[in-house]
């Protein structure tokens, strides 16, 4: 398999010591006739942070959205190959996209809290899935508190849970979206440039959060910011016009890129 090939080709290779429950195999995605991702194969290490980097339009978001079938909602989008989650192809007709998404939280580029109260935002997923049905109300409230704490937002909002989520600042909104995403108790967290709309302080808080959450979640983060990738990730994949040029542990990828293209990119020679 390609993953093995990558690992043994040179140096240490990507850090997959913890194993992996999420893999992409021979995945090609196109919008209509326009290819966006070409024959990509990689594995996301369990309880590690994997960063996807690459210039704008190289297919990072497309690949990320393929992991929880968010591309299903784009009519022209077609996928070939497999996305394996716990060994099952999530594109298998017997599998329901909602079951997949429930297990993979997603955080978007721009904070997108629902125009509801802070509490209702976090409670949205558990309510959908009936997680606390038949239990005391307090169970849900406790869970919401737990998620807000995990997202580092609890102290700031504990007295105003009934306020509209839109009254929060951009950085707070993004942390609320993280709390909302982990409220389903997912195993995987998919983040698409979660800091690109935020100021440096909010960005730092979210990076800290990512590092904290690392032990509990398999995290995939798309980012434009190479320092960020270097700071938060264990493995990094470099995409260029739809091809996975290089996939390695982050330290090696940045210090000893195997590919000339990667080197050009990380040294800022283009993109």
């Amino acid at each position, binding site marked *: 398999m390609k993953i093995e090939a990558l690992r043994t080709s040179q140096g240490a290779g990507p850090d997959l010591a913890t*194993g992996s*429950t999420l893999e992409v195999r021979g995945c090609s995605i196109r919008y209509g006739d326009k290819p966006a991702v070409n024959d990509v194969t990689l594995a996301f290490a*369990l309880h590690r942070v994997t960063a996807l980097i690459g210039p704008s339009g190289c297919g990072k978001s497309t690949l990320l959205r393929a992991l929880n079938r968010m591309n299903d909602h784009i009519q022209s989008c077609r996928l070939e190959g497999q996305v394996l*989650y*716990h*060994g*099952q192809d*999530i594109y*298998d007709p*017997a*599998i*329901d996209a*909602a*079951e*997949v998404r429930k*297990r993979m939280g997603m955080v978007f580029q721009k904070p997108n809290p629902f125009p509801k109260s802070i509490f209702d935002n976090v409670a949205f997923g558990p309510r*959908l*899935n*009936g997680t606390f049905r038949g239990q005391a109300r307090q169970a849900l409230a406790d869970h919401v508190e737990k998620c807000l704490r995990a997202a580092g937002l609890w102290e700031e909002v504990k007295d105003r849970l009934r306020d509209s989520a839109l009254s929060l600042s951009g950085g707070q909104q993004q942390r609320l979206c993280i709390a909302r995403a982990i409220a389903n108790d997912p195993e995987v967290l998919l983040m698409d440039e979660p800091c690109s709309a935020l100021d440096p302080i909010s960005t730092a808080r979210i990076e800290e959060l990512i590092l904290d959450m690392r032990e509990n979640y398999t995290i995939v983060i798309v980012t434009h910011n190479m320092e960020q990738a270097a700071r938060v990730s264990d493995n990094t994949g470099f995409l260029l016009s739809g091809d996975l040029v290089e996939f390695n542990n982050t330290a090696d990828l940045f210090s000893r890129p195997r590919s000339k293209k990667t080197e050009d990119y990380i040294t800022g020679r283009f993109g």
Partner: protein
Amino acid sequence: MSRPIDLTPSPALVVRRRRDRLFHAFAFAGALLCLVVLALLLFDIVSTGAARLSWEFINSFPSRFADRAGVRAALWGSAWLMIVTMAIAGPIGVAAAIYLEEFTRRGRLAAILEINISNLAGVPSIIYGILGLAFFVRWLALGRSILAGALTMALLVLPVVIIATREALRAVPGSLRAASFALGASPLQTVLRVVLPSAMPGIVTGLILALSRAIGETAPLIMIGALTYVAFVPQGPMDSFTALPIQIFDWASRPQAAFQQNAAAGILVLLALLLVMNSIGILIRQRASRKLQP
């Protein structure tokens, strides 16, 4: 390491998916109902009135005898009314839109005008009728003339013309204006020679929309006293008149089946006119947009 995990829909999700499909069907049925109603409406009218439709019907004056009555006077009245209404509302509406869009972008006056126009658009047509009755018919002593009717109708459709024209003007790219200014044109020249021509398709659409509204309006004409029995073709804007919707209303309010048939036939004529007007509008729009993009 990989714990067993089931991604096939859980029982709860199966229920939710079923509800999802149900709601989809429900929304589809709702939308479909609109079409069913439209079909029933057309069926009712055609089945009642189609038999009555003939050249004779179109070319006869009204009559006490349902089978001899026709819409000739009403058609002429409506034609007069439409022409005079457009002659008034067209230039004023377009000019007002130009002023609002090209000469006072911001400011207090513009804000007041804007709110005022959107509120005017929501005033019931019968209120315009009351205005026409008091202002044009009595105070200006225009009587129950075509002119009084057209002035009333013009005020009624003015918001439609203004709103549509403004949208059309807004869609003209600013670069066109800049290019014209760069050639030394004055703001007015720019508007007349550059902006208006490229906004034309949108403006025509607005005018047709206004006409479609005006040709079917009944209440304001009843208010200003358009007659129901007119056995002549109006010769000038000061003549009294009837109009197609008035004639239809008159027939529809009579209990006899024969008159109901006349009403349905009259409606068919009215709907045909609407169809023709809107088709012409579409043609003009297409031709204009073809000219703009060679």
